[in-house]
């Protein structure tokens, strides 16, 4: 009896410490994430003016019905997906490639890590402001491209054309976040035991085969992590599009869902409709997270 009771006490003690350690996070998430999500869901069922002191009218699902038939909202969905796909895939592929490159040059490893990571510590607003100067018609973007392509005097309209303004927002985001994901990939690469490569080399595998047969499968958990994180980052992009439209860029091509939420809630005071949009965005993000877990299948790996 005594022998069987002892492990139980230890387990209970460990569990108690577990609860103590987890409690601050649960409280934090409850206040800053779960509560706002539940409130947004509740608010989305009402016609509520942000400034009005009157009791909001219950409208049920009518905001959702409106949004699903609104060309403006579908344009935002399209703008969000174009941005997410145009940024997420290059981020994933190139951050992995850059991480592999950095791992292959141990002497310059620290320099490259710092160089790539620096933009990640700059706030989104500051990075968008820097790129606004670069994309100015008289700015560096036109000068560089015209120098490289030998096309003096051409205005590539980085912020003035529907297509280029989309590409410009993708460039800003890629520049800002690539270093962050490179660091995560480097951690993943560093955790693969060197003995695996030695064994493969002895068996006659070349570098390409080692990458596809050893690195990539063993890096799968990191790839899943980076793909989920980068996809979520892309879906909730806001600052770049906001600053660009404030500086004269056309809104429709980059009117991502978050920007539409801001304009609907803050500019037009329609907080009920804005909440419905945010719930839809939340569901989209949830779906993509689930899909990526599902597609990756194995999210754990053993050596």
């Amino acid at each position, binding site marked *: 009896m005594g022998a069987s009771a002892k492990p139980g006490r230890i387990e209970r003690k460990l569990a108690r410490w577990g609860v103590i350690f987890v409690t601050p996070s649960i409280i934090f998430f409850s206040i800053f994430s779960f509560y706002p999500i539940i409130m947004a869901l509740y608010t989305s069922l009402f016609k509520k*003016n*942000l*400034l*009005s*002191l009157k009791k909001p009218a219950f409208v049920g699902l009518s905001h959702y019905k409106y949004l699903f038939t609104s060309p403006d909202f579908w344009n935002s969905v399209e703008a969000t997906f174009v941005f997410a796909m145009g940024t997420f895939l290059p981020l994933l592929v190139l951050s992995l490639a850059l991480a592999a490159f950095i791992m292959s040059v141990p002497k310059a490893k620290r320099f490259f890590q710092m160089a790539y990571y620096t933009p990640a510590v700059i706030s989104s607003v500051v990075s968008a402001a820097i790129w606004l100067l670069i994309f*100015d*018609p*008289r700015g560096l973007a*036109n000068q560089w491209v015209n120098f490289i392509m030998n096309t*003096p*005097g*051409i*205005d590539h*309209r980085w*912020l*003035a*054309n*529907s297509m280029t303004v989309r590409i410009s927002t993708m460039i800003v985001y890629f520049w800002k976040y690539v270093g962050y994901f490179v660091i995560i990939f480097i951690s993943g690469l560093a955790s693969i035991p060197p003995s695996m490569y030695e064994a493969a080399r002895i068996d006659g595998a070349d570098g390409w085969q080692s990458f596809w047969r050893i690195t990539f499968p063993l890096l799968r958990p990191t790839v899943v992590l980076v793909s989920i994180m980068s996809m979520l980052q892309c879906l909730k992009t806001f600052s770049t599009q906001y600053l660009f439209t*404030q*500086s*004269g*860029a*056309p*809104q*429709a091509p980059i009117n991502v869902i978050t920007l539409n939420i801001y*304009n609907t809630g*803050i*500019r*037009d*005071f329609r*907080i009920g409709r804005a909440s419905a949009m945010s719930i839809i965005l939340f569901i989209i993000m949830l779906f993509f997270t689930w899909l990526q877990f599902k597609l990756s299948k194995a999210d754990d790996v053993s050596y």
Partner: protein
Amino acid sequence: MKRALLIFTLVLTAFTLFANGQDESADGPVTLEFWTHEDPNRDAIETRYVEEFMASHPDVTVNRVTHSSKKIFELVLTAFAANAGPDIFNMQIEQAYSYIVNERVAPVDYLAAGFADASDMINQYVDGSLDSVIKDGDVYGMPLELNNWAVYVNKRVFADAGLDAEKDYPKTWEEMADISEKLVLRDGQIITRRGFDFRYPYYLISMIPMVEQLGGQLVSDDGKTAILGDDAWIKFLTYMQEWGPNGRNLGSPTYKNGRKLFNMDNNDMAMCLSGLYQGARIRSDNQEFYDSGDWMIIPYPTFENAVNDVASNFYGQYYMVNAQNSAKDIKTAWALTGYMMGHEEEYLEAVNIVPPTKKLMNSETFKNMPYSNVFVDDLARANVVYTAENGAKMEELVKEAVESVMLSGISPVQAHATLKAKAQELLDEM
């Protein structure tokens, strides 16, 4: 579990007690939170007024906070949404209007602010300048400034292009485009010097009058129909298409704000649109240029075949007082506002802004301000900017239409049709 319940109850009790902590007794001290937009020239005089007011009212503490003019709208809005708005704030009337209709601001305490009653206050201001802030006979805002815009001209740039600004300045929008063509310098497609460019974020103030000159309207007088006068709108949008990079390439919303370049006199901006306050900003940015006499102000142009003689719309910045306060706080807030605005001549001299009192507008100080007559003459043919709860969204739709023809290659007919449909839907939703 019992212990957790006890802690929860204690926390809840503490929150309940502290939540009521900001109530002040009728006899206690008053603390006022005063938010306004940044303006270095105004900061100097208002800081002094606040100090003087606190010296004469020892029980009053005023915390004057400045915010960027671009940010103050959303900061005040989010503060009010959380029922924690500032006691005194100022805002442009297009944005402030919603605070009045949603009963978030208190009517002027006339006696505290230095007036006998509502009609006394209305009589002391220029006709029409308080119309936007009057509801059910009460006035809800005290004007800090009333603005209309005219065209600032750099004579040196005209001379550099072989023109005489005094004789060659544009009187019509057609001349504006032709003269800009002579003034503009380009490196290939990239403009390095603009003749003139519009103030793009402010479509309701600066561009709707162009449509009205041609016989169009944004919204019908009864407020039920949007985008009236199809030909006028299409002609206006065609003009803007020609102005942009796909047309004569004279300017674009993506170039740097013209009026900021104008002050620096770097031979890159010949003309810009701004209010009387721009004079003080030129003085503060570039004293040499201000004193040189090489700039002048001309009236807002009209189209050659205009059917209405209208100038740039006028708008106001109004001081308002939070209604969610004790009667004592509201009274003190209006007393401070009245005290500050009693120095209207100093606002004009130090900041170049015009609190629109009849006394000031008829004063020698105002008449002696450089080119103040241009603004007064234009004001006589100006309308107040569109003010409604959907004003910001309406501006966004006009912006979308103008930018679609200037930047996205959409035809004026198509842009007009889209604008008309969306603007009508917006009105119908109200």
